[in-house]
Each structure stands twice: as C-alpha cells, then as structure tokens.
C-alpha cells in the first residue's frame, strides 16, 4: 500500500502526563484513507489523549504518529491544514447565531469571501440547520449544537475529521441524524472519519474498522464483523446465584472440548461455544456437578460488548459518565 493511502498511523505511541499517569502505553494502529475508523473504549482508556496527539495539541512522550504521512510533532502546521476536529466538549460560541459561528470559522480557515457564503449554506444544509441559522446557539438543542459543530468541521472539506465522542449525551434519534449526515458527507467527499466512542452500537453500525482500546493499549483491531467472528459461535450467559465459582470449576469448563472460552465478570458467566443448543445440556451438567446455582440463562450472538469483555477483561461502563458529560455540556451552555 502506498504511504498516501494511510490516513493515520502510529508506532509505539506513548503519552505520560506529569511523569506518572500513563495515558497511552504503546499504541500501534493504522487507519486507511476514506474509511470511518472507531476507537472504542471505556472512559480513561486514552481515546481523547490519542486524538489530541493526532490533532497536534499534545506532544507524544515517545513513539511516532503520522497523519497522511506528516509527522505530528514536526509537521504540525501542515497537518492542521488538512484536518478538522470536533472536541468532546462544546466548541461553538453560544452568544452568536449558528450562521455567525460558521462565518467566523470560515474566516479563520481563510476561505475566500466569494466561496464563503455558498460553503456555509452547503454545510448548514448538510447538517439540516438551514432553518435555524439566524437563531442564537444558546437556543439550540444538544443535537443541534453537535450538528453545528460538525458543520464547522465540514467547512474546509478536510481530508480527515477527528471527532471525539461525537454523539455523547445525545438521545438515540439525535444520534441517528448526526450519523446519517456524517455518512452521507463521507460518501460525497471521501473524507476519512476518525472517531472515538464508548457506545458499542455506534462503533458497530457506523465504522468500517474498530480498534478496541483499554488502559492506553490497543487490545484488538478489525471490522465489527471480524471482531465478533473472532469470538465465534454463540454466547451463553449465566447469571449465577452464588459467587461460589472456584478456579477449579472454571478450569473444568475451559477444558470441555466444545467450549471456546469462559469469561467470568462478577456474577455473570459468559461461555462461548460454537452452537449453544447442543452444548447447553452438557454445560449445565458441569455447573450442577460443581454445585453452582444459576438464576437465568440467555443465549446471544456475540456483540461488541462480548468482544470487549474478552479482550479488555471488563464491560464497557456507560451509564454514569454520559449523564455527567451531558450535565457539563448543559452547564457550559448556561455559561
């Protein structure tokens, strides 16, 4: 593959904050141009740090990172001409109108006065904001603000867009609109989208490739399908009544021929098998003989959550943090 076909590449990227917090611990990844690339991971995994290094805001402690073949530490100003970036926090002025926000950014980006108007209107239309363009941003809903931010990022027709948690705090329907617009923009302009998220479904539905990140390391990369297929078969999930599962019993389960993997997370026992229906009786027998009582049994196809559980050893915790960020965003809006 030619070098120019690679949008983002990092080699052994490490970032240590203030000499102690290891935010990134040797990240190696490659994202081809023209795809939507998702960084999936829980909070504090290093997603934002990674994006901030790639957008030249932070310098890596060691290792290398390139955006379209340009080095992030040495060729920052050339990179900044190719990229656009939407931070996780709110990044528009709320005391002026949506149109004015775009106008200011168009001028900052140096878009010529002839094209300015048409480009702004195109971006507003793309994001379905053309009817509210003269309203103050402080009257916008969360989803509208997000769309305005993305419209901002579209102004320069970047080669790559970095989106840090693009739909955090949005309700499902607002989320869907944002992604529909992003996907059609990507199709139109061939822009690469590099985004971070902790929503499984978002990574699953809207990305061409996913890198799972946990504690500053990439634990697994591939398409959503590949990742799920790497687990294979089906997942039988047992909710255990007592936490009396010993290492001995786990080993016994693992040593059963048809069992591909066993993951224990608190009182949830996930067992990966090729075919759940034929294997279930045998597994139940083993559990019974070990004296383990189960409350509930369910059978599912592997989800990204299971993939995450297997490679990162924990489930993605989502609930608490979303409401926290949503409230921070609200607070910032109020000023």
């Amino acid at each position: 593959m030619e070098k120019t076909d690679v949008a983002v590449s990092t080699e052994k990227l490490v970032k240590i904050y203030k000499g102690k917090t290891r935010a990134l611990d040797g990240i190696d990844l490659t994202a081809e141009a023209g795809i939507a690339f998702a960084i999936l991971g829980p909070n504090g995994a290093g997603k934002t740090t990674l994006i901030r290094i790639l957008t030249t805001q932070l310098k890596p402690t060691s290792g290398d990172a390139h955006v379209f073949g340009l080095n992030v530490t040495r060729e920052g100003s050339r990179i900044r001409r190719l990229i656009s970036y939407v931070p996780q926090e709110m990044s528009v002025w709320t005391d002026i109108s949506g149109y004015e926000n775009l106008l200011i950014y168009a001028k900052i980006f140096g878009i010529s006065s002839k094209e300015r108007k048409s480009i702004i209107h195109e971006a507003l239309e793309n994001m379905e904001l053309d009817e509210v363009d003269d309203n103050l941003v402080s009257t916008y809903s969360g989803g509208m603000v997000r769309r305005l931010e993305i419209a901002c990022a579209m102004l320069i027709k970047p080669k790559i867009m970095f989106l840090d948690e693009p739909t955090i705090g949005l309700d499902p329907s607002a989320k869907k609109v944002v992604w529909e617009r992003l996907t059609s923009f990507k199709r139109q302009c061939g822009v690469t989208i590099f985004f971070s998220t902790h929503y499984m479904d978002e990574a699953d539905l809207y990305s061409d490739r996913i890198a799972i990140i946990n504690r500053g390391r990439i634990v697994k990369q591939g398409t959503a399908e590949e990742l799920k297929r790497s687990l294979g078969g089906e997942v039988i999930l047992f909710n255990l009544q007592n936490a009396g599962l010993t290492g001995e019993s786990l080993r016994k389960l693992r040593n059963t021929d048809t069992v591909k993997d066993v993951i224990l997370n608190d009182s949830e026992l996930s067992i990966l098998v090729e075919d759940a229906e034929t294997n279930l009786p045998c597994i139940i027998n083993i559990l019974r003989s070990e004296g383990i009582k189960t409350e509930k049994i369910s059978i599912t196809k592997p989800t990204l959550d299971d993939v995450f559980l297997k490679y990162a050893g924990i489930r993605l915790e989502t609930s608490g943090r979303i409401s926290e960020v949503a409230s921070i965003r609200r607070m910032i809006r109020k000023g």
Partner: protein
Amino acid sequence: MFVMIELELRRLRHDRTELYFRAVQPILWIVVFGPVMSSVKGIPTGGIPYTDFITPGVLIQSTTFLSIFYGLMMVWERDSGILKKLLVTPASRYATVIGRSMASGIRAIFQGLIVVPFALLIGVRFVPNAAYFISAFVIIFFASGGFAAISILVASFMKTRERFMGIGQAIIMPLFFASNALYPVQMMPQALQYFSAVNPMSYVVDATRGLMITGDLTNLLIDVAAVAVFDTVMFILASISFKRIIE
C-alpha cells in the same frame, strides 16, 4: 486576526448587558467619588477640577478591568472546547492571541463611550477637539489589547475560574492605586513612584488625560512609546504561553 474583532462586534450586537453593568462602577467614581473628594481640595491636580482630573483615570481603570477579565472568557473557552478547536486550525498563535486581545480593545471602546456622556452631564470639560478625542480612544484601544494579553498570559497558567478571579483582582488593584489615575504620582511614597514609572496604566492615563482634559501633549510621545512596548512584549509572551492553556 481581524475576524476575532468581528466576533466581538457580533457578540456585542446580540448582548450588551455586560457593558452596561460594567459601566456602573466608573460612573459612580465620576459622579460620586469625584465631587466628594474635590471638596477636600487637598490634591494638587494642576489647576483642573478634581472630577475632571480623575475622569480619564477612571475610564482607563474600567477598561483595564474589562480587559484583565477578558482572560476569564479564555478560561471559559478552555473549559468548553473552543480553544482546542481554535488551536487545531491553521491560524497562527500570534494571530489568535493578538486578535483576541484587540477584540477586548473593541469592548473597551464601547465601554468608554458609555461612560463619557455621564462625565459630560456632571460637568467634566473635555478638550473640544475631535482629533484629540479620537486619538485618546485609539490609545485606550491599544492599551486594552495589552492588558487583555496579560490576562491571556495569566489564564494560560491559572486554568480555573476561581484562581483566575483571585489573581485578576490582585493584578488590577495595584495597577490602579499605584498609578496616576486618582492622584498625581508626586503625592506617592518614593517606592510607589518607582513602581508607577513601570506601570503601563500610568502612561495610558497620562496620555488620555493630556488628550481629553488638559490638552497638554508634552509627554504624549513617551506615553505612546510605552504603550507600544508594553503591547509588543505582552503579545509575544502571551502567544508563547498560549499553547500551554489547553494542556
């Protein structure tokens, strides 16, 4: 660079409440403090009424306040994602910092224009020369830019609002009291006089007082030079430290 000024104008068009409320304080100085203190007649103002004497000082004090707290907006923009996004654009740091600083100068001009009519009402006699008056505002504009640059510099170290508020007060009050805004420098203790000699506010007040009230322009060149040096130094320092603000 100019786009930041445009941004400020657009903001002001939508909401000017802050300016009106900020104008209350200088108006009180001129309308209350001035007349009361002038009855003391103990301050050698060089033959002009005391209220007239302090009007430029109070005007500069209020525009400096405004500029120093401009950094608070930077801290706010840091908490939101605006600064991060600005730093990822191709615009240079110098253009961003100077643009933002001068944007504060725009606010300062409007602030000044609100206060002046009240001064006229109370009977302050300005030099009846439009060119002098405009020059005074040009100086206020550039001086405010410099003070806003200080505040951006401070903001890049103090990244929270609370800390910023504290340090902001700690910067303004000495600048104000150790300047010739309320009394001539000659009245101060020797140590303060030295401080006043390096206090940019003294030069700004001196220039505007000359242009607006006394019509005495003998020091104007020195004053303008002082403001120019002050601006340049502050712009450079603020630009260098600016990137630190988002780290």
